[in-house]
């Protein structure tokens, strides 16, 4: 079959091709990453020194909120879906995603949803200003008018995510090439199936809770109002029932990426494949019963606090299994350190550091001291930036030749890596200290005693922002004038996409299923 494809703008608007849709997701997420990052720059500029320098406290809160929302829903999640779209069909030997038109719909909802969200910045009363966790009643009774558009925007993102997840799960269960048994699937595919399962379970719950917000705001219900027999804490329970699995939604695909890249550059099979699968599944299941570790200070009964504390600490066990397996994969391998590998290794180390602070947070009696301070901010940026974002970055370097047929410039890749690596630590490590010293989160101004750490973090943040622009440059430069890649640029790489397809992968692949040994 000829490898022809439609051209012009229609190609993108009307496409049913998983590769096109994957590219659109990735670009979309990168744009969102820059916008969310630009907001982080505003935050860091304001926090560079004590005093109110650039923005009003209210605008600062809007920036914090929008930064969190955009990074979580606009940057990380779509980037993972983009990878899924590109890779899953190729990795399991399918001609496309199972439901290609719905796939396109899932994507195109997103730009509109985020337009709606970003429009709120220009609305009367400003954008949402109650944090990405939008606790009631600050977001219900006291929220600005734009809250309603935020709510409906969340509904749209939810619809998009659910359809995307259904597509992934159905593709994997139904479209594998003959011989591609479940336990032969690449780990990236496994982590994504489990992620998709989490999405289907929790996105509707998010939709439910924002719906309750909407009716509390406008139609007189009292879900989150004690006077009517409700409870503001009910909001938190439902939100975090979504929110905690959500954080694993953001990290599991990155685990999958690391599990592809590390064996490739260690030139050695992934250690403990089966236990990796089981560990991922255990993390996902446990993630449903730990949500209230975000709520240790709300005044739950002690028995509840104990339960959630212990359940949370348990998650360290399967996650540890994964980390140990990666190390064991490297052990006695024959490693080289091209850019994807560097990012993957940094991912393992820095994610683990973030995981350690997670375990500290899980200890309820000490969490009373950490909660809602910069220590938490440090924790989640360690798991999110050098976790989820480094994971995606590693994936982009690793599969870029497959996607574009061009090879990125290794030297520039390495510069990008070291630059990000140093900047990311400079930005987020000091936040541990400011948190321990007692600096609350979500404040635009602070006492002198936190000044040094904040200054360091701000300097790091600006450097980190620049490094991401450099990344953009590298990608564009590769696409436009990169050296042509060999069909198998990584000698240790395995999997159908490397073994049976050329670089770049043709527009249509596996119209007839490949043979899987």
């Amino acid at each position, binding site marked *: 079959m000829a490898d022809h494809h439609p051209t012009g703008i229609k190609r993108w608007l009307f496409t049913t091709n998983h590769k096109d849709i994957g590219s659109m997701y990735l670009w979309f997420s990168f744009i969102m990453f820059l916008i969310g990052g630009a907001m982080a720059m505003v935050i860091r500029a304001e926090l560079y*020194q*004590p*005093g*109110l*320098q650039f923005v*009003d*406290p*209210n605008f600062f809160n809007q920036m914090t909120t929008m930064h969190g929302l955009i990074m979580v829903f606009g940057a990380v999640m779509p980037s993972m879906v983009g990878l899924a779209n590109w890779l899953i069909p190729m990795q399991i030997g399918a001609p496309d995603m199972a439901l290609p038109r719905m796939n396109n719909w899932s994507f195109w909802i997103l730009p509109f949803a985020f337009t709606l969200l970003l429009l709120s910045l220009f609305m009367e009363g*400003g954008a949402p200003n*109650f944090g990405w966790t939008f*606790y009631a*009643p*600050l977001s219900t*009774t*006291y929220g*600005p*008018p734009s809250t309603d558009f935020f709510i409906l925007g969340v509904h749209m993102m939810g619809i998009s995510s659910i359809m995307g997840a259904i597509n992934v799960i159905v593709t994997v269960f139904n479209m594998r090439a003959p011989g591609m048994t479940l336990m032969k699937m690449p780990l990236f595919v496994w982590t994504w199936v489990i992620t998709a399962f989490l999405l289907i379970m929790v996105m509707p719950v998010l939709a439910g809770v924002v719906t309750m917000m909407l009716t509390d705001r406008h139609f007189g219900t009292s879900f989150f109002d*004690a006077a009517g027999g409700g409870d*503001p*804490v009910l909001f938190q329970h439902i939100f975090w029932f979504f929110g905690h699995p959500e954080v694993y939604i953001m990290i599991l695909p990155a685990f999958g990426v690391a599990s592809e890249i590390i064996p490739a550059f*260690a030139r*050695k*099979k992934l*250690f403990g494949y089966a*236990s990796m699968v089981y560990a991922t599944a255990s993390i996902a299941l446990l993630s449903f019963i730990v949500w209230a570790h975000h709520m240790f*200070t709300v*005044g739950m009964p002690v028995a509840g606090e104990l339960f959630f*504390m212990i359940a949370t*600490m348990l998650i360290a066990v399967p996650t*540890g*299994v994964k*980390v140990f397996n990666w*190390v064991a994969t490297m052990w*006695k*391998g*024959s*490693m*080289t350190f091209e850019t994807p590998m560097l990012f993957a290794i940094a991912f393992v*180390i820095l994610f*683990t550091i973030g995981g*350690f602070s997670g*375990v500290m947070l899980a200890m*309820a*009696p*000490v969490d*009373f*001291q950490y*909660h*809602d301070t910069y220590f938490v901010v440090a924790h989640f940026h360690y798991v999110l930036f050098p976790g989820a974002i480094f994971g995606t970055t590693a994936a982009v370097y690793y599969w870029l030749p497959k996607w574009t047929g061009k090879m990125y410039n290794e030297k520039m890749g390495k510069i990008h890596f070291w630059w990000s690596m140093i900047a990311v*630590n400079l930005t987020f490590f000091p936040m541990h200290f400011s948190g*321990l*010293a*007692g600096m*609350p989160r*979500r404040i635009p*101004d*602070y*006492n*002198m*005693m936190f000044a040094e750490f904040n200054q360091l973090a701000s300097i790091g943040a600006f450097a980190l922002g620049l490094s991401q622009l450099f990344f953009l440059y590298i990608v564009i430069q590769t696409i436009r004038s990169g050296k042509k890649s060999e069909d198998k640029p990584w000698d240790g790489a395995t999997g159908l996409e490397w073994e049976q397809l050329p670089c770049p992968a043709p527009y249509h692949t596996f119209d007839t299923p490949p043979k899987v040994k």
Partner: protein
Amino acid sequence: MAIRRKLFAGLAVFLSGLLSSAVYAAADLNMRPGVTETSVEAFELHMIVVWVMTGIAAVVFGVMFYSIFAHRKSKNPTPATFSHSTTVEVIWTAIPVLILIALTVPAVKLLIKMEDASNPDMSVVVTGSQWKWHYKYMEQDIEFFSNLKTPQVRENFKLEDAQNNENYLLEVDNELVLPANTKVRFLLTADDVIHSWWVPELAVKKDAIPGFINETWTSVPTPGIYRGQCTELCGEWHGFMPVVVRVLPQAEFDQWVVKKQEEKVAAEKAAAEAAARSWDMDKLMALGKEVYDAKCALCHQVNGEGAGTFPALKGSEMAIKADRMKDHIEIVVHGKAGTAMQAFSGQLTDAELAAVITYERNAWGNNTGEIVQPAEIQAFKAGN
């Protein structure tokens, strides 16, 4: 190759530097142990976890860096082929479980202790509202608001202010005064949104939730001043809502209580006298401006133009139309339920209420010329 090796060495040094600085370095890199029994125990538990995590990190990263060093292609051209081992997998599942159990035991003990607010010697009701705290001593019948000392308007928060004031953002007009060595129970709630009451050195952090009462407690052995902040995002001035606790020896505390009670009687008398008098425009405007800038400007702005969800008072019908005067008094005295506009009857005297309303009706070009007398406020309150 050599460059690469150096880079890795650099990375290792950098990371371990970061890690160890967390643990070894000066006290201000670490959590403060605080002054109460529970805060010290929380600090100790914190140190235990830090060390355990550092230990695990050392082992895991140690093995990994060794492998990166020894098993790179130039040193180890042919990779091994093993890909699983049930024995090691069982071991590295079991060891973390054991470590976690070891961590859980002290954590459970401490948690139960910290959550046990029973049998207190005294109780204080702490109410959060945008953006101040209100303290009410149940036994002593004392109550007062505690505001950030600097009025919450943007102009007051500059770099120089921070540099010139050791307690920048951490000072209040009325501190919460407590006796030493007494088990004090805090009953936390809120008027509007969720706030959270935190004093790091007492290791007390609990959310103040509208419609519910949360309980927590402390018993402070050493007199002193302990500062903290609101730690739940509660709107625009969330970062400007400090908590200051002054702990006094029992005897001094008793004196303080007596003094407070006398002050209360005196203040009531003064307020009644002020209310009985008839005020002239200049006096009302002067007092009104003072009150307005301190209490109202954080939402309605000094220039009366409002911001975001906070309406402008300049040109507002309520503040210029004579027939809306009653609404004006009503909203300031009783607030408006379900909005940030709170009832000020408990926070201001009748004279202050009259003054601020008069001010709003005559400032910024709202030239109604109307005067509201304290007596009218009294009548309004009585009429309701």
